[in-house]
């Protein structure tokens, strides 16, 4: 049995930042990072556009806070947002000190660029591979600390809970298939979101909501799960992300008539150069809805993967594209055979980010003793009902650090977990996996079938526009898929590196997470941010200026509510 002071599940931006923060609290702390992939593969690596922070004299913490709260459609907790904007500048400069290759102005200072919903240029960037550079900087810096030990390619299957206190995990070491326990005084969940519950997503294969499901099963609440962000510009078919920065640099979105349609939806007037918070720099939820409305009017293109519009970058010129958007050019050429210097890029809204997640306080602490969470897996909430682009990379740093420090402080004072009950829990878990998957006979369902039906149900009932009937249908479909999951059969019964087993375990997690999304959506009888209902089209602050909390019961999620914290920005109408 291996034991740590702090154990972090997930080795992406939030997890690595938490590990470093915990290490800096005390050199005496032992810190474990357990991840189902090597850290360089974490999905942070795919983020492109940038990381927001107040650095310039023409900016202020209040402006960043206000933009964020407004963008959240007033569901963000304002005390948390105030802490977030205050700590963001220090975090991005700390990352710069650690070697992050931020793009620079001629005078040598870090550059900032415009981004959706932001009233001031405040998004730092590293060309258009910001997440890649942040992740590699954090990973390489983490290698400095001998006290950080990693378990790469260990798949966590459950949280260990003793007397109401989370004290570690059970995990499969993929290299030999053995189930083992990693115990710890404090556990931090940094496993990211769950975009793969939908059929079209920017998200990598690994974004299956594992940590959210683990916390949910252990009794923690999943907060605001109904709020799913669609990114307006994903490539049709693959869902590969074309960064918002393409619009920040001046790209235009046009329908099949070559018309910049966003001006018809209150985001105009159109200008040649981008105007902050207008037109193509409007917030993501609104832009995604505009696309669907254009589709309903018959003004979108039609292709083998459905409707799409054009993102036109030609007027930016080859030099700017190669300097500021080189990855966009590469992706468009490779995956849709378009050179954006000469042709517009086909794009459509695709699922990108979960505003919801494990309910935490301002320090990353959950309601379970010993359990913390940070990053996309958590919901603090700074993003409320809709997230502004470039706030989530900052979120990884600010809340990764906060959770790391909080968990470290707790570990310095807490007792070690005891060994005896845990040995039994580990052997129970080994037996459960054998009986459910590896040694089971007679099942008839394939993983891919159940997964595809789940994704289709989510797209139909929990997409950009929702209504009661479709959401109910989706909730029922998910219950039936949960029953069919019990009839799963695997081809692969081996122990060494069994990725069919891990795919089944991921599907298990996705079904749990999908149910919380659908159920929370059904019960929120209003439209706010990214949650838009045709049967309840208005925002209802009287009843729903509240976060939803989904708790697990054997019959599905039970939803409770928690009021949002308002400090200095009373809710107003959200017009841009």
């Amino acid at each position, binding site marked *: 049995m291996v034991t740590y002071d702090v154990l972090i599940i997930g080795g992406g931006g939030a997890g690595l930042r938490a590990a470093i923060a915990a290490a800096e609290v005390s050199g005496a702390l032992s810190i474990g990072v357990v991840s189902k992939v090597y850290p360089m593969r974490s*999905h942070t*690596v795919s983020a492109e556009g940038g990381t927001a922070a107040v650095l310039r004299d023409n900016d202020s913490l209040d402006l960043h806070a206000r933009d964020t709260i407004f963008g959240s459609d007033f569901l963000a907790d304002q005390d948390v947002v105030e802490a977030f904007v205050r700590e963001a500048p220090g975090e991005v400069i700390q990352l710069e000190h650690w070697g992050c290759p931020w793009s620079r102005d001629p005078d040598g200072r870090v550059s900032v660029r415009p981004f959706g919903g932001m009233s001031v240029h405040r998004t730092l960037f590293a060309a258009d591979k910001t997440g890649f550079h942040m992740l590699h900087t954090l990973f390489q810096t983490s290698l400095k600390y001998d006290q950080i030990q990693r378990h790469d390619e260990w798949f966590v299957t459950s949280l260990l809970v003793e007397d109401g206190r989370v004290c570690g995990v059970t995990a499969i070491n993929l290299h030999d298939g053995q189930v083992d326990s990693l115990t710890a005084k404090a556990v931090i969940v940094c496993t990211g979101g769950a975009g793969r519950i939908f059929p079209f997503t920017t998200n990598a294969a690994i974004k299956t909501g594992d940590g959210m499901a683990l916390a949910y099963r252990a009794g923690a609440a999943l907060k605001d799960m109904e709020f799913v962000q669609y990114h307006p510009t994903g490539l049709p078919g693959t869902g590969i992300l074309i960064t918002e920065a393409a619009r920040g640099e001046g790209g235009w979105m046009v329908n099949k008539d070559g018309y910049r349609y966003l001006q018809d939806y209150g985001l105009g007037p159109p200008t040649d150069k981008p105007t902050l918070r207008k037109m193509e720099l409007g917030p993501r939820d609104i832009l995604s809805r505009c696309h669907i409305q254009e589709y309903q009017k018959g003004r979108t293109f039609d292709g083998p993967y459905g409707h799409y519009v054009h993102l036109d970058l030609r007027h930016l010129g080859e030099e700017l594209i190669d300097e500021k958007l080189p990855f966009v050019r590469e992706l468009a050429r490779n995956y849709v055979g378009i050179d954006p210097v000469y042709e517009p890029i086909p794009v459509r809204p695709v699922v990108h980010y979960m505003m919801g997640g494990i309910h935490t306080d301002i320090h990353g602490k959950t309601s379970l003793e010993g359990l913390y969470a940070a990053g996309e897996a958590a919901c603090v909430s700074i993003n409320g009902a809709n997230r502004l682009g470039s706030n989530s990379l900052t979120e990884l740093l600010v809340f990764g650090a906060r959770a790391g420090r909080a968990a470290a402080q707790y570990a310095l004072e807490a007792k070690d977990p005891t060994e005896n009950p845990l040995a039994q829990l580990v052997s129970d878990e080994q037996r459960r996996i054998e009986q459910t998957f590896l040694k089971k006979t007679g099942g008839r369902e394939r993983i891919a079938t159940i997964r595809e039906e789940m994704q289709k149900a989510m797209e139909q009932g929990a997409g950009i526009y929702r209504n009661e009937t479709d959401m109910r249908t989706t909730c029922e479909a998910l219950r039936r898929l949960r029953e069919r999951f019990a009839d799963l059969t695997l081809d692969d019964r081996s122990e*060494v590196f069994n990725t069919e087993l891990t795919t089944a375990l991921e599907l298990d997690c996705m079904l749990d997470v999908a149910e919380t999304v659908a159920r929370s959506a059904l019960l929120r009888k209003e439209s706010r941010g990214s949650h838009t209902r045709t049967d309840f089209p208005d925002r209802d602050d009287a009843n729903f200026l509240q976060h939803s909390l989904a708790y697990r019961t054997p019959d599905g999620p039970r939803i409770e509510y928690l009021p949002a914290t308002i400090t200095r920005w009373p809710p107003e109408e959200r017009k841009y």
Partner: protein
Amino acid sequence: MNEPTVTLKVTRYRPERDSAPSAQAYTIPYRQDWVVLDALNYIKDMIDGTLTYRWSCRMGVCGSCGMMVNGVPKLTCAAFLRDYYPAEITVAPLANFPVVRDLVIDITDFMQKLRSVKPWIIRETEKPVSEGEYLQTPEELEAYKQFSMCINCMLCYAACPVYGLEPTFLGPAAVALGYRYNLDSRDQGREVRQPILASHEGIWECTFVSECTVVCPKDVDPAAAIQRTKVNTTLDWFKSVLLPWGAR
């Protein structure tokens, strides 16, 4: 049967039951916009769930999905079926690495080598975060930027004949990463990295083949990093001989 198909011959190896690897053929529907990774996913989802490989981002940035495609190291998420069709396509695990199972290789050695070059900013004194960023002009950034683009996919190690023969060789990506930090205007750690980079197992094992640069999907040009490090190391040696007390 009118739908076009394509055949993949994939290396299989399961240590619990196989004494040696063997090739297994799968015939699947051909799609014009599919990559080799899409084909592998189709096989695993629909035909044979035991086929095992690593993948994640499917957009060429996470570095997981490197394999030998028709004998050439490639990211399978960026290798299009249409470039091979209608011929058969062979898929094998990355060369020069121990095989864990099927298309999954053991990268422990690579991870150790990455760490050994001390890939972090090393400075004599650090300034407080409250004083802001270290200034770095766009030109200073340009000097090392290319070498910071490595996604750790290890295609370069699979292509390197020296690594194939001499597993102690530090290898292209590790040297490029050390070089990246040496060139970063904020870093002062060149001397600290020197014993690793300039060791016998470091740059001096390289014999100028340059296949690493040919296969790199991110244009890092590790061969250039190695050659320039050789030049810098040699110049350092000259200076230490001619100017033993340093330039005054």
